[in-house]
C-alpha cells in the first residue's frame, strides 16, 4: 500500500493529518511483511497502529493484553472510534457469550485475550481456525517482568504464536531496557524482528522528588501539591486500602473532587470514575499502579507517586500519562526513608527459595494440585519439563533483576545531579542538557510558578441538581 493511501486512511478513519512519532514507521514495516517490536512512549497512540493495520490486512487481529480492565478499556475505546467487530474474551463473560464469540470469530476484527485465556484448548482451537492478520503482544515488557515468577503463561506466548501462525507479529511497549527487549524477542522466538525504539524521554514533564521525613509529612506534602499545583492530577499508590483512605481524606480536607480507582472497584464504578475524570468532573484520581492504563486523557498536568513504583520503567510509564497534549506537566515522587521496604515486601511475594521450589516439585510428582499462588506459578514449569535447578536459577535471576531495579530507582530518588540523566541512562539513552525546566535538583524547591503550573482559583462545586432535571438532561433533547 502506498504512503498516500495510508495517510488517506488515517484522515478518513481517525480525522488526523499526521501520525504521531513512530506510528507510521511501525505501520509501514508491518505492511512490508516485517515483525516489529515497537517501544513508543505512553501517549503515542500505540493502539492506532494495530487498528490501522487491521483495517488494511484481511484476517483477525489478536491482541494479547495483561489485564481484564485494560482489555475492557481498549474495547470501549475501539467502540468509541466506531469499530464494532471487537471483543475481549475474559473470564467475566458468561459461558453462553463466550461460546458465541468463539463460534463466530470470523465476524470479529479485533480479539483481546490474556495469555492464560489464549492457551485454553478450546480458545486456542477456535483462534487457530481463524486466519490471523496480526498477533499483537501489548505491554510486551510483561513477558520479561511478569513472566518468570508471576504470570508464567507469558513465557508460553512464543509457542502459542508459532501454533497460531499469524501473518505478522507486533510487540508493543512504552518502556523497555535493552535487556527487556532482548527477553521479549527471545521469548517470542522472533530474533529477526525489526525494532522501532523511541526515546523514553518526555521533556514536557518536569521531574520532581519530594523527600519527606515521615508519613505525616508525606500526607501534608501531598495535600499541598494537589491544592497548589494545576490539575487534573493522578496520585499513584501501591496499596488499594491507602488509595481509598487518602482519596476520602483529600476530598474532605481540600474540597477538591477526588475519587479512588483500583482493582477492587466494579466495572461500573471504574467506568463512571474514568468518564468523570475525562469529562473534567474530577480533580484528582487516587489510583493503584496496575490500573489507569486505559485512561486516555490528554491534559493531565500532575502525577504524584505516594509510594515508590516497582521500577524506573514503571515510573516512566506511569508519569507518561501526564501532558499527552504536549503542555508543561509535573511528576513528583514522594519519598520517606524506608519506603523501599514496601517494594521489597512486594518483591518477596513472588520470590521462592530453592527449598520451596523443591517441595513444590515433590508435590507435583505426587499429583497434588497446588492452591497457593507460588505453587500455581511453579506448576507451569513442571508441566513444561523444567528441572528444579533450572527453575531455581530463573527465580534467582528474577529476584536479582528486581533488586537491581530497586537500586536504580533509589539512585534516581537520591540523585545528586540531573535526575533525567539518571532516568535516561537506565534506558541506555544519553544525558540531556540540564535546564530549569528539566528536573528538581537535590535541595531545590519545586518551581511551580516558573513552570506556570499554579492552581487557578477553583470555582465552588455547584450543588447536585435535582433528579428531575438530570432525567431531563439525559432523555430530553433540548433540555
Amino acid at each position: 500500500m502506498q504512503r498516500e493511501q495510508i495517510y488517506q486512511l488515517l484522515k478518513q478513519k481517525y480525522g488526523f493529518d499526521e501520525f504521531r512519532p513512530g506510528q507510521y514507521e511501525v505501520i509501514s514495516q508491518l505492511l512490508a511483511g516485517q515483525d516489529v517490536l515497537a517501544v513508543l512512549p505512553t501517549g503515542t497512540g500505540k493502539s492506532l497502529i494495530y487498528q490501522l493495520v487491521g483495517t488494511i490486512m484481511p484476517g483477525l487481529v489478536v491482541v494479547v493484553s495483561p489485564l481484564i480492565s485494560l482489555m475492557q478499556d481498549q474495547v470501549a475505546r475501539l467502540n468509541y472510534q466506531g469499530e464494532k467487530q471487537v471483543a475481549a474474551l475474559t473470564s467475566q463473560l458468561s459461558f453462553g457469550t463466550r461460546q458465541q464469540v468463539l463460534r463466530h470469530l470470523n465476524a470479529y476484527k479485533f480479539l483481546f485475550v490474556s495469555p492464560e485465556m489464549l492457551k485454553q484448548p478450546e480458545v486456542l482451537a477456535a483462534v487457530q481456525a481463524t486466519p490471523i492478520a496480526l498477533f499483537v503482544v501489548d505491554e510486551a515488557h510483561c513477558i520479561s517482568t511478569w513472566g518468570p515468577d508471576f504470570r508464567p503463561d507469558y513465557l508460553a506466548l512464543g509457542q502459542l504464536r508459532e501454533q497460531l501462525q499469524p501473518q505478522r507479529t507486533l510487540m508493543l511497549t512504552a518502556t523497555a531496557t535493552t535487556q527487556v527487549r532482548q527477553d521479549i524477542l527471545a521469548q517470542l522466538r522472533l530474533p529477526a524482528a525489526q525494532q522501532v525504539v523511541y526515546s523514553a524521554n518526555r521533556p514536557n514533564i518536569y521531574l520532581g522528588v519530594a523527600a519527606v521525613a515521615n508519613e505525616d509529612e508525606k500526607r501534608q506534602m501531598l495535600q499541598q501539591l494537589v491544592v497548589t499545583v494545576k490539575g487534573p492530577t493522578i496520585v499513584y499508590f501501591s496499596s488499594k486500602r491507602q488509595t481509598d483512605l487518602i482519596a476520602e481524606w483529600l476530598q474532605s480536607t481540600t474540597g477538591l473532587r477526588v475519587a479512588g480507582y483500583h482493582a477492587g472497584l466494579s466495572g461500573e464504578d471504574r467506568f463512571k470514575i474514568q468518564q468523570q475524570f475525562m469529562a473534567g468532573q474530577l480533580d484528582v484520581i487516587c489510583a493503584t499502579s496496575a490500573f489507569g492504563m486505559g485512561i486516555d486523557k490528554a491534559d493531565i498536568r500532575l502525577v504524584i507517586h505516594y509510594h515508590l513504583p516497582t521500577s524506573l520503567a514503571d515510573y516512566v510509564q506511569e508519569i507518561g500519562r501526564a501532558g499527552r497534549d504536549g503542555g508543561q506537566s509535573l511528576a513528583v515522587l514522594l519519598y520517606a526513608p524506608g519506603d523501599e521496604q514496601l517494594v521489597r515486601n512486594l518483591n518477596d511475594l513472588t520470590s521462592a527459595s530453592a527449598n520451596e521450589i523443591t517441595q513444590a516439585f515433590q508435590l507435583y510428582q505426587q499429583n497434588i494440585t497446588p492452591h497457593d499462588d507460588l505453587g500455581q506459578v511453579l506448576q507451569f514449569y513442571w508441566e513444561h519439563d523444567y528441572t528444579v535447578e533450572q527453575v531455581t536459577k530463573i527465580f534467582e535471576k528474577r529476584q536479582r533483576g528486581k533488586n537491581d531495579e530497586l537500586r536504580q530507582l533509589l539512585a534516581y530518588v537520591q540523585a545528586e545531579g540531573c535526575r533525567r540523566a539518571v532516568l535516561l541512562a537506565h534506558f541506555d539513552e544519553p544525558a540531556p542538557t540540564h535546564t530549569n525546566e528539566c528536573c528538581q535538583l537535590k535541595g531545590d524547591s519545586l518551581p511551580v510558578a516558573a513552570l506556570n503550573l499554579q492552581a487557578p482559583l477553583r470555582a465552588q462545586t455547584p450543588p447536585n441538581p435535582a433528579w428531575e432535571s438530570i432525567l431531563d438532561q439525559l432523555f430530553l433533547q433540548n433540555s
Partner: protein
Amino acid sequence: MMFSTEPRRAKAVFNVLRGRRTVSTLFAGLTYDCLSALDSWHGVPMEKFLASLQELLTAGDLATPMEGYVQLTTAGAAHKEQLQATLYQPVAFRAFQTIDVRRFTAISALALQVASQAVHHQNRYYPLTTDPGIQAIVKQWFRRQTVAHLGEQLHTELTTFLQSLPAPLPTVFVASISGFENPGQTDQQLATQLDKTPLEILVMRKDLACRWCLWLETQPQSCLATLLQPLVKSNPVTPSAWQTYQTVQQGLTVEQVAIQRRLKLSTVREHLLEVAILVPTFPYTQVLTPARVQTLTEIFADQPVVANWRFEQVQTVAPEMDFFWFRLFQIMRCQTNAA
C-alpha cells in the same frame, strides 16, 4: 439483619444469600423466615461473609451457641432493631426469585446509555459495558425503537416509576444512570452526597433494581419490556422441578412420576420439596395423603416450634415413614404458620 435470638446455621444463611437452591438451604430460608432474601447477594464470597460474621462476633452482637450456629445477643438484638429503624430496608428482593435482576440491570443500564446518547445525536461514546452478549441484545433492541420518540417515552416511563418511590430512591436511581454528558455517580459518591454508607446505597440500588423490574412487569407497553421479558420466569422453581410438579398435579404418585420422568425417586422428592417451599399453593394433602397428615399431626401436637421437630420422633412412632413425608409436613406447617 439475617440473624435472630434463636440459633441459625451460619452456612445456611450464607447459602440463602448467594442463592444456592438446595432443599436444605431453601428449608433453612423458610424456617428462618428469610427466603425473601434468596439470591440477593449472588456471588458474594464466603470469606467476606465470614469476615462480617467475625466482626459481629467480636462486637458482641452475635454469639455461637454451638459450632456452626450463631444467634443474636441481647445487645445484638437491640442493635438490629435500631438499625432496622434507621437504615434503608429493602422491600422488593423477592424479585430475585423469578427475575434475573442482575442481568436486566446490566442490559438496561446499557440500553439507557444508548438511548440517552441517541437522543442527543451522539454516536461517539464509551459504552458502559464491553460484554459482547449484552451489546448484541441492546443493539437488537435499539434497532426496533423509533429514536424520535424513545427519549420522551423513557422520560415519561421513568418519571412515573420514580414518582411512586420515597426519597431518596429517585435521586439514587437517576444519579446512577450513565448517559449523555452524565457518567453517573458511584455508590461511594452517592453515599457522601446523601450522608449514608456505600453499603446502604448498594442495598438501595439492589432494591431499586428489583422494584423497577417488578414495576416493568406490570407495564407490557414499556419500551423496555422486551428486554425484561426473556429474563422473567413464571415461578421461582427450577424448570426440572416445575415439570415434576406438573406431573404430580395430573394425579400421579411420587413413584409413578419417577418412572414417567425417568428420575430417581430421591430426585423427584427433592423437586417436590423445592416446589413446596417456594410455591404457597402446593397441594399438600393430595401428596401427603390424609392418613400421613393425621399421624404427623398427632406426633407433633404439643410442639408449636416447627424448626425444633426431629425426625427421630417420627421414627419411634412410625418407623416405616420416609424422611420425605416428615420434611413435607414440616414445610406445610411452616407455610400455614406464616400465612
